[in-house]
């Protein structure tokens, strides 16, 4: 092609030629920072600063009111291992986590499978199962107290009618199971997340598996469950973090108020955060309580890393729709699709 044959320079229409960004677009970087700045400010002021402040306090003997506190080094951290209440509360928190997290995921996923089926009134069932999750926890706790109160509760009333021995539900050791029940009462949140995951699974995968001879259980365990595994991992991690930090259910189920609200929580519900709260506001040990919270923060980080590590082989990450479909179909039919 000669120069003479070369096409003339492309001429753009007049309105396209003057395409210098207008309005907000002229300041993309500034606009970006303007929009993220509220979050950034919140993160710095409400997360980073308190974290740093608590870290500093954890190395002091500050009592919350006196300005004459001093640096005590790692003393507060060493005290955690000598504090039987801290270790007891950590044990109770671990038990609470080990029970509530798997139970919430199993029940939530089971409910999600149920309400994902084409049954009559499906929308109503979804709403009913999800409703407890949106009820404020204070209202839930009140209902549970009314249900389980030894004198005026519905349960003991029924026991009385049946001439059965009435029971102190809100005292040790049963109050722990009341707290578990109250926590699982809000399982609708997990259900909604699992339902969203289930609805993201292409229907043809299930159909293909059935054509290849898989029954419903096999299709669920070999197709739905592997494809849901990233969702389940998310639920495990957020569930573990929430359970380790659980505080409100135990406090609300405790009947005392005032200065002994935290320390009169029954021993089986004496969770780690209750202990930290009592150290802060009942005992005025701000330095030690901050060390407790920092220890918890580190524990959560380690646990999250461990969960990520051990879940690597169990979680099925969808690298692309075709690969996922092939892999899942292969699982469902015991490898028949690949043969």
């Amino acid at each position, binding site marked *: 092609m000669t120069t003479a044959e070369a096409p003339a320079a492309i001429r753009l229409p007049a309105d396209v030629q003057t395409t210098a960004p207008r*309005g*907000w677009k002229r300041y993309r970087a500034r606009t970006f920072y303007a929009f993220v700045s509220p979050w950034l400010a919140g993160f710095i002021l409400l997360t980073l600063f308190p974290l740093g402040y608590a870290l500093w306090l954890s190395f002091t*003997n500050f*009592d*919350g*009111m*006196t300005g*004459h*506190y001093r640096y005590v080094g790692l003393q507060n951290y060493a005290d955690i291992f000598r504090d039987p*209440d801290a270790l007891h509360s950590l044990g109770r928190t671990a038990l609470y986590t080990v029970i509530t997290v798997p139970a919430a995921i199993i029940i939530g996923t089971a409910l999600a499978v149920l309400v994902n089926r084409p049954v009559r009134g499906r929308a109503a069932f979804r709403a009913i199962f999800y409703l407890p999750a949106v009820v404020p926890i204070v209202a839930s706790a009140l209902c549970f*107290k009314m249900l389980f*109160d*030894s*004198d*005026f509760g519905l349960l*003991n009333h029924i*026991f*009385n009618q049946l001439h059965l*021995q*009435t*029971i*102190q539900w*809100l*005292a*040790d050791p049963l109050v722990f199971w009341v707290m578990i029940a109250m926590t699982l009462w809000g399982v609708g949140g997990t259900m909604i997340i699992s339902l969203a995951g289930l609805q993201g699974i292409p229907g043809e995968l299930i159909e293909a598996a059935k054509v290849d001879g898989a029954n419903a259980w096999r299709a669920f365990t070999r197709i739905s469950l592997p494809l849901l595994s990233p969702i389940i991992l998310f639920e495990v991690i957020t569930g573990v973090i929430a359970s380790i930090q659980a505080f409100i259910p135990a406090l609300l189920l*405790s*009947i*005392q108020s005032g*200065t*002994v609200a*935290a*320390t*009169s*929580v*029954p*021993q089986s519900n004496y969770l780690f955060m209750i202990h930290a709260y*009592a150290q*802060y*506001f*009942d*005992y*005025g*040990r*701000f330095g030690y309580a901050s060390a407790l919270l920092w220890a918890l923060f580190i524990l959560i980080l380690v646990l999250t890393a461990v969960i990520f590590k051990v879940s690597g082989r169990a979680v099925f990450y969808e690298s692309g729709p075709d690969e996922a479909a092939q892999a899942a179909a292969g699982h469902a039919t015991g490898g028949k699709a690949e043969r």
Partner: protein
Amino acid sequence: MSGRFSRRRLLAGAATAAGVAAVSSACGSGADSTTLTIMGNHPSEITDSDVAGFSKKYPNVKIKFVTNSVQLLTAMFAAGDPPDIIRDQGVQNTPYLVKRDLAEDLAPYFAKSTVLTDDKIAAVDDVWRYDGSVQGKGPRYGLAKDYSQDAMLWCNLRVFEKAKVEPPDPTTPMSYEEMLDVAKRITRRKGAQYSAYGLYPPFDVSLSAGVINMVTSAGGSVFNSDYTKVDFSAPEAKSALQWYLDYADAQVGPTVARPLAAGAAAAFFADQLGMVGYGYWFGGEVASNPQVQDHVRFVTAPQFGSTRTSPCFAAVGHWIPKTSKHKQEAWNFFEWYFGEQPAIDRAKSGWGLPGITAMNADLPETKPYQKQALDVQNAEFSHMSVLKYSPYVAFTALDASLSQAFVKGLESGLSAGKLADLVNDTLNPLLEQGKELVA
């Protein structure tokens, strides 16, 4: 006109709105206006009428209330911006506040006041005095809005009638053992379900106050002479802890491990609680529950040891922080709230005894139960005693350590000696640290 919402127009609008808001705020507040921040119970204790009266007298002072909470108070002190007036319990907290240099010495204000003069102030207000070593002496740091002798009892006579048990004599003290025995006889329960509790002992205002009162009556003290150590293993303290364990074992009333869900007042007014350990202030509650007024009786405090004691457990009132930015305005509110119409209104309501002696004449006595309560109260004044607290540890820590030890003890069947060890082990390091912090 273009309907497009341009950035320029948005910014211009926002700037205008901000300007208008700033100008109107400045105009509204007035140049010499002051805002007094009160951490107190509004409107239950400082009523709207109290605030309106103060605003009428001091139109340039606005009042802002903040929630009465130790968490908030700590945060406000940490931020260097504490409230100007703070609600507190004078019995437990005066030495603690003064040793930490937190409370303003009000002696100069009292010296100039014509409303709150020494001759008008009740003896109980001395719990708000501290000279650095002895509570009850030295300058005043606060005042009680009202008070009661909190170890006294209110009896629901219907519960006694149903159990065919004679109610306690109003002015002769029962021993704690006798009180427990009466409670056993009037309690009605089936399994874990109670139709009538016998006793709600006088620990509700403060668990530590209840225990310290018992120990004092027995001639002991939980603190050593300079308040730097506790010893709950001493015989008097151990027997007080043992009484609580016996009471819990008798299952005649709620405990820290098995509390009463609806609270003592609800059970008492439903004729489901025979004796409740509350002071004169509970008459204010009775006034709001006419259904029980014909079958209540106010009786003297039970006696644990050889000495008859009937202390005030709290003397709830207010103090002014040293770092308050509006001390004069806060004092003006003090005079109004503690010495003028609000104090008269409180006395008339029967919600506690007034901190100003002359206002005892305003206490209600028109109804038979009010008259009975006032007669018993008048006889009880002579047995008034003062509890001792350490300046080195917050009373919340005492309450918390006792409640935690009781919860553990009642659930695990620990002995009183073991409970005492738990409390000592918790509190002594705190006292040691507290001493270092205020040194």
